[in-house]
């Protein structure tokens, strides 16, 4: 039950209530109708009995019989019978052992009419009336009239069928109304859900506050939580950044001091290693991948900006940095993380390239594929495995060098992506990173 959505809950509750109402109302109606039908049937019995009572005469044999009676009395299969007890003799509409021995209630006075339900000769249900009356000559007689009461059942069955059909039709109309009502009433909640999906996808900063008055407080509360979440995230990132920057400034001093010592080389190396660990954990701590929200980043713009930055950083090397970004899909994630991934990959390539670096960004099966190649000396299989390990450095080309691939690997994993290393057609290393892309479906929902 807890997993049912509101619409289903409303429909099921309405259906249960309708079934209950139908059951109660239907039963009451059938009972009332049955009472009316039985009353009418009894009235018929009474009329027949009264009619026969007026016709009673004593025969020469001493039996009391009606002079005239409805032709159905005495006809086999009609279910119509009469029986008269008078002056110690019993007369019947037809000779029958069953009728002869049938026990019926005995009225005590002329106004004490007794009714009985009995089974007929073929077990057909019969209803009997017994009255105390007099024959024309004044002989006291007990008259019993029996009729087939299946007539009552037939009428009740017909009525019940009609009632059920009407109730079903009414129920369907009511259910359709309830569905429409539920849809209409729950429309703001569905919109709220859709807005939250947009917020999660990064296409909306906050839930629009244009809801009915009973939903609006929920939207406002969600926005307050989102704002607090963003503020906390920003504060945590800033704190992590400040701590990292303070540590690294002190490390720079430590490193400088160690440079002047005769045996300072291990200290310098250790300072570099600590700085690398700080960088690594700072990249993870400030990544937006774990925040649950997914914004979008312009891949082509980021690759171009990084290439431009690297041209300045490596200006003395006169590297040829080519970018192929004509078919680059947008990255589904935070722009800072894409900058970190692209920046580290391309910086790593620039450090090791002899003269050429090539960065390609393209769509591959709904994913963003980044390929960065260089024409350096490349890596052996073992070096490739080491390169992506946390905090591992493959070269000693200065502080911060050689850590980029491990950071990229970590960030890619945070985005359910993957980094793979291979030989490049340019002669050096080829690094491929697969990342989530903004697909046409995402674009369409923007």
């Amino acid at each position, binding site marked *: 039950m807890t997993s049912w959505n509101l619409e289903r809950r409303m429909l099921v509750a309405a259906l249960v209530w309708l079934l209950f109402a139908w059951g109660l109302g239907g039963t009451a109606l059938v009972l009332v109708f049955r009472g009316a039908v039985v009353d009418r049937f009894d009235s018929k019995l009474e009329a027949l009995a009264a009619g026969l009572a007026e016709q009673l005469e004593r025969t020469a044999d001493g039996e009391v019989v009606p002079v005239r009676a409805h032709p159905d009395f005495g006809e086999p299969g009609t279910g119509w019978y009469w029986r008269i007890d008078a002056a110690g003799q019993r007369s019947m509409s037809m000779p029958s052992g069953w009728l002869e021995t049938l026990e019926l209630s005995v009225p005590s006075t002329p106004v004490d009419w007794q009714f009985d339900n009995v089974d007929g000769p073929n077990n057909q249900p019969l209803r009997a009336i017994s009255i105390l009356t007099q024959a024309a000559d004044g002989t006291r007689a007990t008259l019993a009239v029996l009729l087939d009461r299946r007539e009552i059942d037939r009428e009740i069955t017909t009525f019940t069928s009609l009632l059920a059909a009407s109730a079903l039709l009414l129920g369907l109309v009511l259910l359709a109304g309830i569905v429409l009502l539920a849809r209409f009433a729950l429309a703001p909640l569905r919109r709220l859900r859709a807005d939250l999906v947009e917020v999660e996808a990064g296409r909306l900063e906050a839930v629009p506050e244009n809801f009915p008055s009973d939903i609006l407080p929920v939207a406002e509360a969600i926005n307050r939580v989102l704002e607090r979440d963003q503020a906390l995230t920003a504060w945590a990132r800033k704190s992590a*950044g400040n701590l*990292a*920057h*303070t*540590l*690294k*400034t002190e*490390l*720079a*001093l*430590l*490193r*400088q001091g160690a*440079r002047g010592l005769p045996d300072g080389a291990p200290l310098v190396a250790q*300072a*570099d290693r600590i*700085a690398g660990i700080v*960088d690594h954990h*700072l*990249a993870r701590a*400030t990544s937006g991948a774990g925040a649950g929200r997914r914004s979008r980043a312009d891949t082509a713009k980021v690759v171009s*900006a*990084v290439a*431009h*930055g690297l041209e*300045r*950083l490596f*200006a*003395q090397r006169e590297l040829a940095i080519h970018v192929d970004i004509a078919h680059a899909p947008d990255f589904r994630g935070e*722009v*800072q993380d894409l*900058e*970190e991934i*692209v*920046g*580290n990959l391309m*910086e790593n390539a620039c450090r090791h390239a002899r003269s050429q670096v090539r960065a390609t960004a393209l769509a591959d099966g709904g994913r963003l594929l980044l390929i960065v190649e260089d024409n350096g000396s490349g890596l052996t299989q073992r070096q490739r495995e080491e390169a992506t390990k946390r905090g591992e450095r493959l070269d000693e080309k*200065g*502080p*911060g060098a050689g850590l980029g691939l491990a950071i990229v690997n970590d960030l890619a994993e945070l985005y359910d992506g993957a980094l793979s290393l291979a030989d490049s057609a340019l002669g050096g290393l080829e690094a491929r990173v697969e990342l989530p892309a903004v697909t046409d479906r995402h674009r369409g929902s923007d």
Partner: protein
Amino acid sequence: MRILVCEDQPDLRRALCRTLEVSGFAVDQAEDGMEALKYGLAEPYDAIVLDLGLPQIDGMSVLHRWRDEGCETPVLILTARSRWSDKLAGFNAGADDYVVKPFEMDEVVLRLRALIRRSAGQASAVLTCGPVQLYTSEGRIVDNGMPVDLTPQEFRIFAYLMHHANRVISRQTLAAHVYDRYSDRESNVIDVLISRIRRKLSINIIHTIRGQGYRLGPPRA
């Protein structure tokens, strides 16, 4: 060549300034963003080393203000912020180079020399005038294959003239690029230093332009 170092951490700032002075630069120091902004706009530095985490005004804001005010001095950002988003923000703000802490002092010196050379429009790392060559990366002068031994002040004057060869440079401009804020800048001292440099070279390539200053160029026929 004159450098402004903007760094709030005193020990690191002193170490950096000492290294730069030993490498032949005149160095001014700014310990917060306000000083950095003021000095950067007031003095004609050849390059600026800028920390991003400065007190009062952060380094990125200082850089924006310099560029907005028309200051085109090459800026090398020296920071602990190693994220690429910070690097790209730095380049977008107008930085010319970016070095992450901890760093090699020698790398900073090399990068500053390269920045100064490129900003002067010199593509080659070796500047040549006749038989005299200045190896900008190493801060070394060679005359007819023989090393020339100049004092730091002489070196700064000669290096500035080599970077701006064939251009007339006034004594005031030379003084502004050779001395730090606290040095006495008497123009006749420049004349004395120029005379000493001439004596140490095998050929006169520093020509006096009467009433204007000096021009470094090939020897006159």
